[in-house]
């Protein structure tokens, strides 16, 4: 399952269309934990969304996971089994921030640049090599670029595997969109 499940969800264990009053958020130590928990819950088919935290618990580079409150215990059990436990569960009382969901493409002829939120990934269209990564401001951006640039899409580690921040998360979106474009 992918980060893009933020935007496209399959049929899941909980019904859709719930209001905030029956939703809660799981707060984790850091963004890496959120990404791990999202993978686990996605694989189990839970109806969850990765969102921005409400102002009262916001500290910096944050993500939370929105869950159906009624399934809290089952979800916590799933996460405990996977060894990724939240710091706390907070009922949702106000609207949560939505991640940016706009992609922009720029065709440079031999190269294609995909932008998601503040991150841009550019590939050589023929070799599928990642030739540049730009944008962002969190410290994993230079690290991600160091590990990914010069490798093909198939060889490079995904930002999901080695990224830790919202910028890394945005780069994953660009990476997945690039993969879709490459397969067309």
């Amino acid at each position, binding site marked *: 399952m992918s980060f893009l499940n933020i935007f496209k969800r399959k049929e899941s264990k909980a019904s859709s269309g719930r209001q905030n009053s029956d939703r809660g958020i799981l707060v984790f130590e850091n963004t890496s934990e959120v990404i791990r928990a999202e993978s686990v819950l996605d694989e189990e088919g839970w109806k969850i969304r990765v969102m921005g935290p409400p102002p009262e618990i916001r500290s910096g580079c944050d993500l939370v996971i929105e869950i159906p409150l009624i399934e809290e215990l089952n979800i916590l059990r799933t996460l405990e089994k996977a060894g990724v436990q939240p710091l706390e569960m907070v009922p949702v009382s106000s609207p949560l921030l939505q991640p940016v969901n706009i992609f922009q493409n720029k065709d440079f002829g031999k190269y294609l640049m995909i932008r998601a939120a503040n991150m841009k990934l550019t590939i050589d269209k023929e070799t599928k090599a990642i*030739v540049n990564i730009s944008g962002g401001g969190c410290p994993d951006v230079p690290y991600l670029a*160091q590990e990914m640039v010069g490798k093909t899409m198939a060889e490079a580690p995904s930002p999901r595997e080695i990224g830790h921040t919202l910028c890394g998360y945005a780069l994953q979106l660009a990476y997945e969109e690039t993969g879709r474009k490459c397969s067309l």
Partner: protein
Amino acid sequence: MFAVVGTVPDREFPLVSGEVNLEDNVICIQGKKVSVNRGTPALLAAAIKTCEVLDQPAPFGYLVGDIGQGDGSRRLYKYLNQNLGKCDPQSKSGTSFNTIAFHYLQPDVDGHNRVLFAVDEMAQRPVLIADAGFMYAAKMSGQSAKYDLFTPDVGELAFLADEEAPHPFYTRGFILHEENRIPELISRAYEHDNAPRYLLVKGGQDYVADSQGIQATIDSPVEGAMEAMGGTGDTLTGIVAALIAAEIEIKEAAVIAARTNRLAGSFAKPTPATQVMEIVEHIPRALEAILYKDEGISEQIRA
């Protein structure tokens, strides 16, 4: 002398502070080396090249390894809180910094605020520049107005303009990241006190703005490939920081920096696959051309 605060993409890189040099295209600080790829090393490389042309001392760096887990950033925030207000014992100049550029750090409001407390304790308040993660933290803390210059790209400007967004990842959709809306975004950022004294907005066209609006537009030469290149914004921030540290007025420094970065890019004849060090190497030639041969710079600032 000016200081640069940031991270390097190596988890094992210790927290170091000291004068920074560029040797064989590698950043050297306190016997440690880091290659110039993008991020803070790219900022430092551009700043060093600029200082060489201006015959100014090399920047003083506060660097730590951080690959995004925030551990290095937290140590650096703490170190700055404890040391920035004092004369740094390792500073050769023995004086306070006249300019500080804050760069790639894990955005952390509490850490940011503690650093600002330390700045308040400095004998002389330096010019404060913020970009990347530290700029995000400055905006989220509601203290943007305490800064003298931010250097956002268009997406980051939209984030500054969105009074609700705590990170560019959450910029609301109705605040589109389109270059033709830059005057509106600038105005909105100032309206909500989310902008510093000056903005240098980098993009297809670069803009220098203040609370009164756009003060200068720099649109040539044009190298579209630079948009795809990682580090070209970092080099711009490095150049402008070094110019300001050389006591060039901020608005003028921003115009010169934007023109220099563009010209250096043009000299490099980049493709979207070009790496930033190829541009850094052309900074001295570009800066000299603009400082010493271009009569138009003063006119542009007046305009």
